[in-house]
C-alpha cells in the first residue's frame, strides 16, 4: 500500500516524512490544547467551589451567631424578670407567668418554657440554632451576650430592666 501511494524515491520519502511529522505535531498540539482546556476547567471548578464554600460557611456562621444574639436580646428586653445562671450558659426569662429557659448545650442554643414557680433546669428544650458557645453576663446595668460560631465570637450589650 505504501509503495503504491508513495513510490519509493528519495524525494517522495522526504515528503512523506515531513507530512508524518506535521501530522504528529498537529495531533500533539491539539492534545496539548485539550489538556490545557481540561486543566483550566478543573481550575475554574476548584476556584468556584472554594469561593462558594467560603461564602456558604461565612453566611451560616454569621447567621447562627447574629440570629441567636438577636433572639436572646429580644427575650431579655421583653422580660419582666431575668435570672442569669451562675456559669452564664443559661438564663431564665420570666414573662406573663411563664418562664423561658434559654441555654447553651450540645452545640446549640435551646429554649424550654415552663410555668412560673416550677423547678427550672437547663435541659429538654427545643433547639433554636447551632452555635459553638454562648455566655450571658451582667455588668454595669447591662447584659452582655457573647455567642461563638464557626471560630468567631460576637458580643452584644442589652440594657437591663
Amino acid at each position, binding site marked *: 500500500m505504501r509503495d503504491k501511494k508513495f513510490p519509493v524515491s528519495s524525494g517522495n520519502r522526504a515528503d512523506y516524512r515531513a507530512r508524518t511529522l506535521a501530522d504528529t505535531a498537529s495531533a500533539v498540539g491539539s492534545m496539548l490544547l485539550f489538556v490545557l482546556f481540561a486543566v483550566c476547567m478543573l481550575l475554574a471548578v476548584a476556584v468556584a467551589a472554594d469561593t462558594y464554600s467560603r461564602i456558604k460557611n461565612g453566611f451560616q456562621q454569621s447567621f447562627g451567631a447574629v440570629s441567636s444574639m438577636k433572639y436572646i436580646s429580644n427575650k431579655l428586653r421583653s422580660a419582666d424578670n431575668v435570672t442569669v445562671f451562675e456559669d452564664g450558659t443559661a438564663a431564665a426569662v420570666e414573662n406573663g407567668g411563664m418562664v423561658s429557659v434559654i441555654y447553651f448545650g450540645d452545640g446549640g442554643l435551646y429554649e424550654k418554657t415552663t410555668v412560673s414557680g416550677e423547678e427550672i433546669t437547663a435541659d429538654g428544650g427545643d433547639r433554636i440554632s447551632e452555635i459553638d458557645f454562648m455566655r450571658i453576663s451582667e455588668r454595669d446595668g*447591662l447584659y452582655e451576650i457573647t455567642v461563638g460560631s464557626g471560630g468567631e465570637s460576637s458580643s452584644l450589650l442589652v*440594657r437591663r430592666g
Partner: protein
Amino acid sequence: MILLRGYRRPNNLLFAEMIISLLFFILSFALIIRVFAGADSLEREERRRERAALCAQSVAEAYSVSGDLSKSLELALGAFPEERGGRLEIRLDEDFKPEDSGGITLVLEESRTDSGAGDYSELEICFTRSGGEIYSLKCGAYIPRTGGAAVEQ
C-alpha cells in the same frame, strides 16, 4: 506549511476548533471568576455590616445606661478615647476591636438639648471604611440629671 496544504485537513480544523474553544473558555472563565469575586466581596461586606450593626447597638445600649460618650465606648468596646466637643473618633480593626492602625473608623457625634430636668441627647453612630459608610445608627436619649434612659431610632 506547504506540505500540509491539501493533506489531512481535519487535523488543522480540529486545531482551529480547539483554539476557538479555548478562547471562548478563557472569556467564560474570566466572567465566572469576576462573578465569584463579586459574590465573595459582597458577603464580606455583609458580614462587616452585621458586625457594625451589633457594635452600634451595643454602643447605643451602653449610652442609654451611662449617658456619656466615653463611658459608653468603654463599656461596649473597652476603649478609652478622648471626647472633643461632643465628637469622638476611634479606629477599629476588622474584628471591630480598638486598634490604632485599624481600617474601620467609628465616629460618635452627640448633640444635647437642655430640657430643665435633664438633657435630650441625640447620638449618631457611624462606621466608615476607606471613605465609604458601612453602617450608621441614630438614636435619641433622654438623660435625667441622675442617669440615663434612651429610645433607639
